[in-house]
C-alpha cells in the first residue's frame, strides 16, 4: 500500500485527448431499443392486422371440436382455428369461437355455411374418411349474400353441394315428405340432375316444403309449368284403369327421389326463376293430370243413384278423354221437398278440348261465350252420367256425353257453381229392367207350380211302375217266340237239311229241262218244218 503511490507521477503519460462527440455515441446506443421497439411495434401491428375476424358457430354437439386444434377449412385450405368451445347459456348447444385469417373476412356473409366434417356413411355415400386420421375439421361454404355476419348456426350434416355450383334452387310444396331426405336425387328423364337440399315442415303443420337444387345445364328445362313428383320407391296404383306400377331408378327405389317433367304443350314457356314454387305431386300421372290453368267447377246431381265407387279424383271423361276430375262428393237435403241428393262437384278443364290440334294459341277456351255454348250443348242432350270404369273393382267415373233422347233440361245460370243435368248411369237402366224382371218373377206362383210338378212326377212314377209289372212279361214272352221262329228258320237253312237237298234236286231238274228246251229251240230254228212234219231221222 505504501509502495504503489510513488511511481505514478513519472509514469503518467497523458495521451492524445480526443474529445469527440460523446452525445452521438450515446444516441447510437439508444438505436438498439429503438430498433427493438420498431420490431415489437411492427410485430404487434402485424398481429393486429393479421388478426382475422372472430366468429361464433353453434352446433348441436361438440363432437370432434377441440379448442386450439380444430381447423376451419374452405376448399380444404386452412382459414382458421377454433379458439375455444363452450356451452351456450341454456346448455342446449355448443358454441365454438374461431378466429379466421384476415382474408376470410369477406367470405363471412349471411348465407355462408359451416359444418363439422366427420366420417359419414349415409344414403349410399361415404364422406370425410380423411378425418379419421387428421381429426374433424369445420368445413365452410361461402354464400353469395353481401350482408356481413359473425355468428352462425352450424349445419348438422354437410351441405349437398357447394354454393358455387351453377344451377338453381326450386321450392316444392308437398303434403308429406315421402321417403325423401337431404341428398335425395332429382331426376329428369331418368338422369340425375340435382338433389334435395333441405326440407322443413310448414309453420301450420299442414305440409312440407322441400328445397331442391337442379344443376346448371338442366335447370333450363324447368319452367313455370314443370311438374315435380315423388319418384320414391315403387308406386303401385289401382284406379279405374287398373293396376299400375311406376318406378324411377334403382337408387330412388331404395333411397327415394324426385323427378320432374314439363308437359310437351308448355315446353316452350320461359324457364322458371330461381326459388320458384311448385307443387310436389305424389306420382307422375297425378302431376301430369293437373296441367290446366283454367278450371271450371260444376255440380252434378245424380238423383237417386248411388255414388258408391266414385272417389274424389275420379276422372271426368268425354268420349274417352279425361277432361276433369271429381273434386268433392257431398250430401244435400232439401228441407222443402224433403229430398236427399248427392251433389258431386267436378273440376272441368276446358283447355283440354282445345289444346291439341288447334292452330294458333294453345289452351284457352273453345269459345268466348261459355254460356251460349253450354246452353246449346245441354239443349242437344249434353248430360253427365255415372259409368263403371272397372267391373272388377266397381270404380265409377263421370262421363259427359250427348244423349239426344234425354229428357229436356235447362241450366240454372244463377246457381254457383252451375249445375249440369245428369242422366241415370249406364248400368242403371239395366238395373231397372232387372228389377222389373225380378218383380215379375216374384208374381209367378212358384209354389203352385212346384206342387203341380211334383204331382206330375208322381203320376209318371206310377206309369213307369205299371209298365214294369204288366208290359215287361208280355214283351219277354213275345221275344222268346220270335227267337224260336228264328231258330227254326235257321235250322231249315242248314246245308244238310232236307229242304236244302230237295231244293238242290229241283234246281238240277230245272236246269236239265232248260237245256232240253234249248236243244229244242235250236232244232226248231234249223228245222222249223219239224213243227209240222215232226222230227226227222238222223242221216247216217
Amino acid at each position, binding site marked *: 500500500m505504501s509502495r504503489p*503511490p510513488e511511481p505514478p507521477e513519472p509514469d*503518467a*503519460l497523458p495521451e492524445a*485527448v480526443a474529445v469527440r462527440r*460523446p452525445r452521438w455515441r450515446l444516441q447510437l446506443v*439508444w438505436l*438498439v431499443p429503438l430498433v427493438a*421497439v420498431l420490431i415489437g411495434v411492427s*410485430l404487434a401491428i402485424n398481429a393486429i392486422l393479421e388478426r382475422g375476424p372472430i366468429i361464433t358457430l353453434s352446433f348441436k354437439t361438440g363432437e370432434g371440436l377441440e379448442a386450439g386444434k380444430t*381447423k376451419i377449412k374452405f376448399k380444404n385450405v386452412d382459414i382458421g382455428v377454433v379458439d375455444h368451445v363452450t356451452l351456450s347459456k341454456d346448455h342446449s348447444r355448443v358454441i365454438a369461437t374461431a378466429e379466421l385469417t384476415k382474408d376470410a373476412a369477406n367470405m363471412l356473409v349471411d348465407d355462408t355455411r359451416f359444418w363439422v366434417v366427420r366420417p359419414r356413411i349415409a344414403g349410399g355415400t361415404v364422406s370425410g374418411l380423411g378425418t379419421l386420421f387428421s381429426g374433424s375439421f369445420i368445413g365452410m361454404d361461402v354464400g353469395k349474400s353481401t350482408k356481413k355476419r359473425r355468428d352462425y348456426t352450424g349445419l348438422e350434416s354437410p351441405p349437398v353441394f357447394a354454393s358455387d355450383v351453377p344451377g338453381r334452387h326450386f321450392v316444392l310444396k308437398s303434403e308429406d315428405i315421402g321417403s325423401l331426405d337431404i341428398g335425395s336425387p332429382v331426376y329428369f328423364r331418368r338422369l340425375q340432375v340435382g338433389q334435395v337440399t333441405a326440407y322443413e315442415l310448414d309453420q301450420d303443420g299442414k305440409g312440407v316444403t322441400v328445397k331442391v337444387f337442379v344443376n346448371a345445364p338442366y335447370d333450363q328445362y324447368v319452367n313455370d309449368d314443370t311438374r315435380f313428383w315423388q319418384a320414391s320407391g315403387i308406386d303401385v296404383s289401382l284406379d279405374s284403369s287398373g293396376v299400375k306400377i311406376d318406378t324411377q331408378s334403382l337408387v330412388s327405389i331404395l333411397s327415394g327421389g324426385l323427378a320432374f317433367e314439363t308437359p310437351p304443350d308448355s315446353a316452350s314457356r320461359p324457364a322458371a326463376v330461381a326459388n320458384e314454387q311448385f307443387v310436389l305431386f305424389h306420382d307422375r300421372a297425378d302431376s301430369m293430370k293437373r296441367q290446366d290453368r283454367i278450371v271450371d267447377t260444376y255440380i252434378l246431381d245424380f238423383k237417386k243413384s248411388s255414388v258408391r265407387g266414385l272417389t274424389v279424383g275420379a276422372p271426368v271423361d268425354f268420349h274417352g278423354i279425361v277432361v276433369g276430375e271429381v273434386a268433392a262428393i257431398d250430401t244435400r237435403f232439401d228441407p222443402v221437398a224433403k229430398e236427399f241428393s248427392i251433389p258431386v262437384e267436378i273440376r272441368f278443364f276446358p283447355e283440354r278440348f282445345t289444346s291439341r290440334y288447334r292452330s294458333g294459341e294453345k289452351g284457352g277456351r273453345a269459345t268466348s261465350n261459355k254460356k251460349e255454348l253450354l246452353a246449346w250443348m245441354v239443349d242437344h242432350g249434353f248430360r253427365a252420367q255415372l259409368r263403371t270404369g272397372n267391373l272388377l273393382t266397381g270404380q265409377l267415373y263421370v262421363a259427359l256425353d250427348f244423349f239426344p233422347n234425354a229428357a229436356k233440361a235447362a241450366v240454372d245460370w244463377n246457381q254457383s257453381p252451375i249445375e249440369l243435368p245428369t242422366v241415370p248411369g249406364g248400368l242403371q237402366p239395366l238395373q231397372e229392367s232387372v228389377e222389373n224382371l225380378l218383380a215379375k218373377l216374384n208374381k209367378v206362383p212358384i209354389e203352385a207350380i212346384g206342387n203341380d210338378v211334383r204331382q206330375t212326377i208322381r203320376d209318371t212314377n206310377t206309369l213307369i211302375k205299371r209298365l214294369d209289372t204288366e208290359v215287361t212279361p208280355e214283351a219277354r214272352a213275345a221275344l222268346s217266340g220270335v227267337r224260336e221262329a228264328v231258330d227254326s228258320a235257321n235250322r231249315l237253312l242248314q246245308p244238310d237239311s232236307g229242304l236244302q237237298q230237295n231244293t238242290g234236286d229241283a234246281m238240277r231238274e230245272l236246269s236239265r229241262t232248260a237245256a232240253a228246251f234249248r236243244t229244242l229251240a235250236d232244232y226248231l230254228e234249223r228245222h222249223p218244218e219239224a213243227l209240222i212234219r215232226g222230227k226227222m231221222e238222223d242221216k247216217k
Partner: protein
Amino acid sequence: MTTRHIAAARCGLTLCHDCGLLTRLAPLAHEANCPRCGARLHFRKPAAIARTWALLIAAVVLYIPANVLPVMYTSSLFGAQRDTILSGVVYLWISGSWSLAILVFVASIAVPMLKILALVFLLLSVQFHSTWQPKQRAKIYRVVEFVGRWSMLDIYVITILVALVQFDALATIKAGPAALAFGAVVVLTMFAAMAFDPRLIWDTAEGRHVQAS
C-alpha cells in the same frame, strides 16, 4: 470499512483493459488512448447506465413477442401445430413431464425475466445512489453475468430440431418468429450485463462520485 479503500479513479489512475498498463489520466478527461497499445482508456465503462438501459429496454420489448408468438411450427401427417414457449411448458406439464416442464420454464421464462429484473434493480439502485447492500448487489451482478448464456439452451434445441426433423410430408419442424426474438432477448440481456459497470455500485456505496462520462 469500505471507505478506507482507495479507488484508482480517485487517484487519476486507470488500467488499460487490453495490455494492463497503468496510466495516469487527466482528471475529468473524456477520452484517452493507452500510450502503449492504443486501446481506449476510461475510468469507468463509458455511458454504462445509458447503454445498459438501452439494451435492457430493447430486451424487454422483444421479450413480449418472444413469449406471445409461436416459437416452433410442427407439421406432421396429422395436422399442423404452432407452439409458443408457454404452450410448450403447459403441454409438458399436462403430459406429466414435470421435471422437463420446470426446466424449460426456468431456462426460458424465469431466467430471462429475473435477469431483466435484476439488471433493472441494479441500474435503479446505482442511479438513485443507493448504498444498500453493495456486496449483495455485486453478487447479483455476477450471477446475472454467469447465467446469461444458459438461456440460449432453448434456441439450441429448436435449431437442432429444425435441422433434424425434415421428413417432408411425414413431419417438419420450423422455427417461428419467437425463436428469433427470444435469441435477441438473451443476447441483449447479455450485452446489457456487460455494459453495466459494477464498479458504479461501489462508487456510490463509498460516497465517491467519479465522473465516468
